[in-house]
């Protein structure tokens, strides 16, 4: 746990980490709202996922597959009865596209793969980042735990964040790298010329990129535009003045976990723990307010070999085997245990009367309802955190009439980003009707 790690080494207060508007978050002041998408691949077993009763508080109880979330039930809402409404029908692709963008997929030349696609709109975390992330050091962050993701079927399956339909954002999967990005280079003494020199280098790189840009045709200029945007964002981060610490922001101890396989096996639970702690502290330090967290990839190429006895097939293979649904169930429970660990890390950091989790909206979902059927019906959706009071919690709500999953996305966009978000998605996935039932107003 971060708190323990933090206490173990005498930590400097993180003077470098000011929030960038220059306002320190003292007691009683407004804390920022954050958005986290926590994604797990290949769905659930709906009969063992759905809670039996609807309602709020004591009126509903966690289902079998949601048991690991017991300690966070008070900050959890289970949303049922929604359907993926985009017109594209391609198992896994349509589900993840609907949950990150609310819009259709676009088929790509598949080469040797069975199918490939990209999105047709950028992902909503990027829309939100424009509004709430513009001033933080990292406009948004992309994290990944399991490395067994499908890369051969285009960006839709491989990534959660897409700056544009053709510019997916690669995720950081090594906690040591993440730590270095977040917490090194910000503790320089004022006399260290490093950041000034980094800026000069970036200016030289920018000038050379502009020179190249001028020589290219339109399609390639768009590629260079992406590159120039990246340079400008990095330059801004380098230049940003250090800010005052909040009460809870500390530089955590440097991790040693690199997310390397051990004997060919992923160290999922350990990586998830370290990654969750680092992410929670990044939120507490206001280094970012928008995160996508790919716990496991769409389709489910990961293998949870440590569950049960004997070698297991990949999650994907298991879900297609009628006789292996028990193992699928165990996997969903395991994923929820890891999700609970992420929530615990966010909840462990106090912010005034609340916590980082209390000030966040967390969407936890998958790329299909059930891997066995590839269905987009009755989608598994969890919402955790209260978004600073904008979301209702401790609730099981079942929508009727196959309600659009995008209604949930719009509710979360408004809860975190405010009324500037009037709609989300496109085509069949378009929504202008936020799910008020999970909001407080």
């Amino acid at each position, binding site marked *: 746990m971060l708190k323990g790690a933090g206490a173990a080494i005498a930590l400097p207060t993180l003077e470098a980490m000011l929030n960038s508007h220059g306002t320190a978050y003292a007691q009683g002041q407004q804390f920022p709202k954050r958005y986290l998408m926590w994604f797990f691949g290949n769905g659930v077993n709906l009969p063992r996922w759905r809670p039996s009763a609807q309602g709020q508080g004591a009126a509903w109880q966690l289902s079998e597959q949601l048991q690991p979330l017991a300690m966070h039930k008070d900050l959890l809402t289970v949303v049922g009865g929604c359907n993926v409404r985009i017109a594209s029908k391609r198992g896994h692709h349509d589900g993840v596209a609907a949950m990150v963008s609310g819009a259709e997929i676009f088929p790509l030349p598949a080469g040797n793969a069975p199918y490939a696609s990209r999105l047709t709109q950028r992902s909503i975390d990027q829309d939100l980042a424009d509004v709430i992330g513009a001033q933080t050091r990292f406009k948004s962050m992309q994290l990944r735990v399991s490395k067994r993701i499908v890369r051969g079927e285009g960006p839709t399956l491989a990534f959660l964040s897409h700056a544009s339909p053709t510019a997916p954002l690669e995720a950081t999967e090594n906690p040591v790298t993440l730590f270095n990005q977040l917490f090194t280079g910000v503790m320089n003494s004022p006399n260290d010329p490093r950041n000034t020199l980094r800026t000069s*280098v970036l200016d030289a790189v920018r000038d050379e990129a502009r020179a190249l840009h001028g020589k290219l045709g339109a399609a390639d200029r768009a590629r260079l535009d*992406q590159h120039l945007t990246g340079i400008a964002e990095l330059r801004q981060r380098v230049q940003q003045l250090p800010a005052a610490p909040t009460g809870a922001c500390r530089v955590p101890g440097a991790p040693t976990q690199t997310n390397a396989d051990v004997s060919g096996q992923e160290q999922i639970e350990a990586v998830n723990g370290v990654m969750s702690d680092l992410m929670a502290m990044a939120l507490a330090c206001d280094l970012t307010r928008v995160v996508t967290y790919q716990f496991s990839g769409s389709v489910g190429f990961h293998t949870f070999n440590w569950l049960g006895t004997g070698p297991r097939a990949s999650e994907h293979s298991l879900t297609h085997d009628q006789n292996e649904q028990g193992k699928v169930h165990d996997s969903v429970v395991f994923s929820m245990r890891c999700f609970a660990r992420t929530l615990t890390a966010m909840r462990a950091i106090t912010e005034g009367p609340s916590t980082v989790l209390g000030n966040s909206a967390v969407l936890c979902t998958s790329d299909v309802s059930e891997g066995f059927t590839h269905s987009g019906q009755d989608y598994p959706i969890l919402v955790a955190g209260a978004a600073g009071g904008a979301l209702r919690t401790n609730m099981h709500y079942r929508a009727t009439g196959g309600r659009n999953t995008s209604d949930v996305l719009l509710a979360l966009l408004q809860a975190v980003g405010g009324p500037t978000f009037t709609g989300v998605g496109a085509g069949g996935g378009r929504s202008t009707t936020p799910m008020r039932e999970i909001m407080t107003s």
Partner: protein
Amino acid sequence: MRHLLSATLLLTACEGALLGGAVTPEAPAEPAPVAPMAMPTGGGVAAPLEPTFPTFAPGVLRPRVMLGQWYRNTVRDVLGDAAMNAVSVTPDLTEGGLVTIGASSKSVTPTDVTRFEDNGFLAAQAVLGDATGRARVIPCTPANATDSACMQQVVTTLGRRLFRRPLSTDEVTRWRGIGLSAAQGYSSFTRGVEFVIAGFLQSPNFIYLDERGAADAATGWQKLDPYELASRLSFFLVQSTPDDALLDAAATGGLSTVEGVRAQAERLLRRTEARDAVSSLFDEVFELEGLMSAQKSDPAFTREVATSMRQELRYLFAHVALDPGNDFRDLLTTRMGFVDRRIAPLYGVPGPMSGFQPVELPEARAGVLTRLGYLANKAHDADTSPTHRGKLVRQRLLCMAVAMAPPDVVAVVPPPDQMNRRTFRQRLEERTAEPRCQGCHQLMDPFGFPFEGFDSLGRPRTLDNGLPIDSTGAFDPIFSRHERYTGAKDFAALLHDDPRFTECMTTTVFRQATGRFEAESEGRALYELHRAWKQTGYRYADLVVAVVTSDAFRFGTVE
């Protein structure tokens, strides 16, 4: 530009059509410049007509983002192993089955920009961390921390290797200035060099291979300049930045003639890195990355075994392509194998105590399609997969497209039913009997049935689900090839003599060399490359040299 997976299919289909006098479906609206003519062939076979092609023009030149492997190798070659080990790369984008093509459409994202910066400083600190490294990148002894002349030497020598050309005066001034500012800020010449290296590794001049050439009056196309040609050759053949000899050749006119290009290509092909480059290309063609995530319930299949299976094929590719005297088609027929102690038992041959050793494999093994790496990769957990095995042959070895399964199809073969015993092949044939399945499955499954004599790990077998296996079939009936085969060896012999295979390999090598799909207007160039390759006996090196000396490789057009 046309996606040539389908174009090759059309080309193949039209060989038959041409005999009936039809024009190729690819023919442009304007009249084709070359009339069909008879082509001499040996053996008294009726001479096929030469197809018609649109007027030749080279394809569009687009900047390519350096691939992960190229990046690492370049850092290794210029800055050393410690620097290479300090940098991290992310997976490349695959397009049309090749990362070299994906590199032409990849964008550098903000995440990449951050990584490039991190890598730049990490690599610089690694090489400058010891005296050997410092001597490697600092060719002079600085008189003091801000020795401008020495900094200039660092900038010009490192810049030439990393930008793959001499730096312009402005560039030298810019980077020397950054080096001197840092040297002054830290009162350390070495820290100055650190910022130069870190900057070079972030520069678009390093990150992108921009081979735009200059307008060429004689042809009306863009002609790659000698340094661009050097980069193209070097990354294609040895997956790294040009070495000094190649840059020297570019500087002295050594790449201005076809003979000069040929000589450099032949030199590069003799470097050991050329073997890695060939292995990597065919590793992609055979989709061997899939082995690393393949799941088998058989405990004999471990990740270590999977790695060895993959390594065997990488040795095989380099052997067939680059060892003297080999005909590339031997890939499909050779019994030469490479085994270590992990996979030797699966082949039933003695294995070495350590490492890999070449062996002659048992009689049943003929070529790459009878090797563990292919057979296990293209199989289910416990069952074989004629569909996956056949699809690889159709798509990757014949360059023909197979449409994707309709989205509503549950593409699962029913499990065995002990009341009604069937082999996997029988269950597959029953499951896919409907016409809407056959449209695609007839393109794939007959190319996979020959391998039913090998189980899901690639071991020989005679029974499946207790019933005798059936590895017979007709070669490619929907393309009027009705020859019967029994088992893998028969099938491999048919494929060995099928011109579609060597045409597809020509196309694949061309794409790898240029980092793009061939343009419609390059149909003639590919046709001639294939014909020349045939005439020289299908030596891989001859194909490579023919590609790199072709106009399609040395010229381009721009948007």
